[in-house]
Every structure is written in C-alpha cells, then in structure tokens.
C-alpha cells in the first residue's frame, strides 16, 4: 500500500509538471485566437521546427544551449510573423473555417518540408539532465525546468499584456475588433506583434520539449491535438481557462498512464474532452454571453 501511494504521488507530481508545459503550449494558441480570431492548426509544427533548430544548433554547430534556445525563440517568432503575413492576413475577411484549413495546409507543408530536409529519423539533442530523487520518487529535472520556465513565461506574458501599451492594445483588440481601429490603434501592427509573440512562445515550448523528447517531422501530431483540446476545453481565447484545462488534462494523462498504457491515458483525456464539450460547450470558465 505504501509503495502504491508513492507511485500515485509521483504520477500526480509528474502530471502537474506536464501541465505546466501544456499550459505554455495552450497559452500561445489562446493568445493568437483571442486576438486574431484564428486557430493555428499548425502551431505544433512551428514547435517542431523550433526543436529542429535547437537540435542542429546544439549538436551540429555546437552553439551553447541557452544561445541556441534564444535563436530558436526568435526564429520561430519570425516564422509566426511570416505565417500571419503570408497566410492569415489575406484571409482575415474569409470564412473562419477557410483560415483554419489554410493553416492546415501550412501543417502539411511544414511537416513534409521537415521530412524532405531532415528525413524521418528520430533525433535526440542528447542533453541528459539528472533525475531528482525526492523521498523515493523520481522526478525528471528536465520536466521541473520546463515547468518552471513555463510558469515564468506565463507571468511575463501576463505582465506584457497588462503593463505595456502594446499589451493593452492587444487586449483591447481582443475585446472589440471593430472599435479599436477607430480609436487609432493600428490593428495590423497589433496582429503582427501578437503573431510574433505567439511564435516566440512556440519557440520557447520547443526549447523545453527538446530536453525531453526526440524530434522527428511528425512530433507535432503527438502534442498538437492535445493543445487544441486544452484551448477548446478552457474556452478558445480564454487564457486562464486554458491554464486550468492544461492541468486537468495533464493529470488525466498521467494518472491514466499509471493504471494502464500511456495511450489509454490519451484516450481517456480525449473522451473527457468530448464529454466536457457537451457539459460546458463554451469552455470551463465560460462567460455567458
């Protein structure tokens, strides 16, 4: 019984740590949806590109890891900017579903571009961080780091949104798309800034994920869907809701994985998602409109 409890506690803690990373993933997507009203289906693929960037910078060009991480964050931020400029901007007035599908095209493009350029091998950056042993529980240091960095990033984004002029403009646009341009806010600039910030968050997620997972062209498919579900569960565009939903999801996956295979943890999480959609279709913390 004693041993069983330790495993349970370990799964709970790992769930919380996973939740931090998932919350970071959801944050970027929610920011973009909340402001631009577009779902980047290819968000996880941006992360995949970031992971490749770090992998090559670190293992092939021997750039120190922190510097490689910074370059990746900036690079994916630029990628987000380009995505908005090239794909989303021409479609801003099209049907929402067309915007979704166009980013689906980008998903195909990025996935296969990675396949063409890097092949389908699994690559590992080969950074081995120690495993923490606390009271007979094993907690990966990489997860702890990811959790911490995710929390810090979220606080920074929060401060950016509430304490700076640009951040205020972003929140204002999210509240009313029509009025803000009349008040003298350049909505195009706000959209570009948001896309860059969203991309940079994807880059940061890539930095944290590359410490734990192998990178391959289809790695996006393994955490992309879960990110969308977290965002929808929390209410698209609702950042606090996404934050809460990320931890709920992570716990389900972690505890489901404890009692059975990891896949069943995912199945459980997906089923939970569908059921929750029926119970609270507008998200966990829905504001009734």
């Amino acid at each position, binding site marked *: 019984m004693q041993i069983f409890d330790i495993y349970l506690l370990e799964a709970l803690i790992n769930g919380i740590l996973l939740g931090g990373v998932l919350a970071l993933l959801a944050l970027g997507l929610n920011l973009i949806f909340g402001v631009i009203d577009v779902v980047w289906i290819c968000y996880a693929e941006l992360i995949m590109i970031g992971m490749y960037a770090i992998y090559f910078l670190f293992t092939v060009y021997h750039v120190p890891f922190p510097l490689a991480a910074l370059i990746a964050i900036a690079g994916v931020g630029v990628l987000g900017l380009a995505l908005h400029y090239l794909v989303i901007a021409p479609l801003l007035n099209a049907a929402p579903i067309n915007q979704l599908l166009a980013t*689906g095209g980008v998903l195909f*493009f990025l996935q296969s*571009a990675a396949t063409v350029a890097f092949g389908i091998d699994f690559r590992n950056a080969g950074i081995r961080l120690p495993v923490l042993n606390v009271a007979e529980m094993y907690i990966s240091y990489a997860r702890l780091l990811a959790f911490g960095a995710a929390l810090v990033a979220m606080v920074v984004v929060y401060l950016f949104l509430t304490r700076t002029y640009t951040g205020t403009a972003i929140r204002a646009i999210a509240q009313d798309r029509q009025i803000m341009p009349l008040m003298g806010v350049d909505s195009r600039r706000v959209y570009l800034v948001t896309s860059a910030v969203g991309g940079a968050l994807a880059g940061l997620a890539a930095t944290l994920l590359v410490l734990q997972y192998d990178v391959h062209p289809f790695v996006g498919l393994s955490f992309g869907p879960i990110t969308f579900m977290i965002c929808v569960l929390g209410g698209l565009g609702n950042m606090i809701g996404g934050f809460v939903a990320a931890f709920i999801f992570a716990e389900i996956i972690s505890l489901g994985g404890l009692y059975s295979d990891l896949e069943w943890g995912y199945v459980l999480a997906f089923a939970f998602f569908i059921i929750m959609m029926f119970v609270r279709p507008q998200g966990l913390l829905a504001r009734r409109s």
Partner: protein
Amino acid sequence: MTMRNYFPWAAGAVLVALPLVYHSPYPLHILIQILIWSFAYTSWSVMGRFGLVSLGHGGFMGIGAYVTALLWNHLGLSPWIGIPIALLAAGALALIVGWPCFRFRITGHYFALVTLALSGIVLQVITATRDYTGGSLGYTPERHKAGESALLALQFTDKETWYLIALAVWAGGLYIWRLVDRSMSRYALEAISEDEDAAAAAGVNVTGEKLRITVLSAVMTAFAGALYCQYQMFISPDTVSGISVSLQMVFAVVVGGIYVSLGPTAGAVITLLMAETLRVSFGTKAVGWDNLVYGVLLVLFIIFLPKGILGSLLEARWLRRRPPQAAPAE
C-alpha cells in the same frame, strides 16, 4: 440539351467497358485508388459543403476498415456481415458525437476541433489495442485461400473485379450526393449554414437535419474505409485513420471544388496523380514532396480559388453562357 442528358451515360459506359479492353494492372490500380478515395472525399463533401467541416472523418474511415478486418480475423465473420456492422458502428459513433454537438450548438471552429479530437481518439484506441489491431505497424486481413478470389471473403485477386466494384460504389456516392442536392434537406442545411437561429425560426429542425447528414456522411466514409481495407489487404492507423487522413480529405475536396458533385473526384484525381507522378519520377527521394506540394497548393487555393478547380471552371463557363444581368448578385 440532348447532348447533356446523354453525356453521363456515355461516360459511364466508357468507364464500365474500360477493364474489358484494357488489362494493364498498374493503371487499373491507380484508377481503383482514385475511385475509392473519390468516394471517401465525396462522403466528406456531402456534409462539408454545408459548412460542417469535420476533421473526424479519418476516425470514421478507420472504424470502417478496422471493424471489418477485426471481425474477419478474430470471429471469422464474412465482410458481407462485417461491413454492415462497421457501418452501424460508424453511424452510432456519429450519433453519439453529433447529437450533443448540434444540440449544444457547437459550430465552426469548435465543431472542427471536437471532431479533430474524435480522429485522435480512434487513432489512439487503434494504437493502444495493439494486441488485437497490430498498433501502428498495421494490420492485414487474413487471406481466404492464398492467391484465390473468394466472394464470401470479399477478396479478389484480379484488378478488373475491383475496378468494377469501386466504380459502382463511386457512382453510388455521386448518386447520393445528387439525392441530397435535390432534397429539401439541402435548402434546410444551406439555411442553417447561413444562420442557425433564423433557420430554426423558419421551422427548420436544425439538430435533426444536421444529424441526418452527419450520420449519412460518416456511414459512407466508413464504407470507403472497409472497401479500402478489402482492396489493399493492409491497413495502418496512418493510412486510414487519424488527423492527417482527415486533413487529406478536406484538402482534396477544397482543391477539386466543394460545391460541385464531381469536385471531390477531381480532387482525388489531381492529388493521387500528383503523388504517383512524384513517386515514379523521384522514387524514394520523393518522400514528403507530395505533401509539401499539397500544403502549398491548399494554402494558395484557399486564398485565391476557394471554390476549387472544377467549381471555378464550371462557374466561369456558367457566367459566360448567360447574359451579365443573370449573374448572381454577390
């Protein structure tokens, strides 16, 4: 006018007669694949054209393929019984997911993402039950007798039979598309896609209409999956299920033309021929290139040609034939 009436029959006769005079297996193989996928894409567009963009059809296709194959291998149930069971399963799943979706007004983005979760679930279940389904390594229905055709097992070794089966199913799919196109439901669903509240106020049973079209589309897609499984004799989660298959369906339909009956077929012809050409001319070096081109084309089409190739061609022809004042007011 008579020319127009006879044309589909003449074209049909040519397609039916083709395998009698032409036996080359490779082009027939390509044609069969085009027909099966055309049917799958048509199934998607039956609901997709009304703004019900589902990213869960990979899931339905996977159910059609895996239920049929599993019943055959584990219980020895002939596909003649297995396929109806698979279709029932897909229809039931569509009901279970669709009813609450429509009842609680989950539309647009939300609907696409809920159905995306559905594809994810089916894919994960197939992978997780790897003791039965072979997981991501794929699954092969057992041969009835090595190298022999068997009507009972729905396994045929000659391509001609498969071509005719696929042709019949494809034509059936187009017929269903046409029935929907001519029905009152079409007007109801178009009204719903414009404005749900207004449609409901005008007396349209919003939930019922959406549910009917969703179940129809899901069952057709599952049938495409079962057919693919019986023809190919090999299925894997990546080829018949999951998000990439769902996106591939959407992509082909958008490229071909979502609002015209032959649009999905045009999409299948374009995408499969492109993939084959790339594969034949570049061999293994081409891995990934077909999807690379798809991705770019999908973005370009949605930005510049949202009605698809066939849709835009037909529209251009239609506009030219009529005096300008008859053109629809945008």
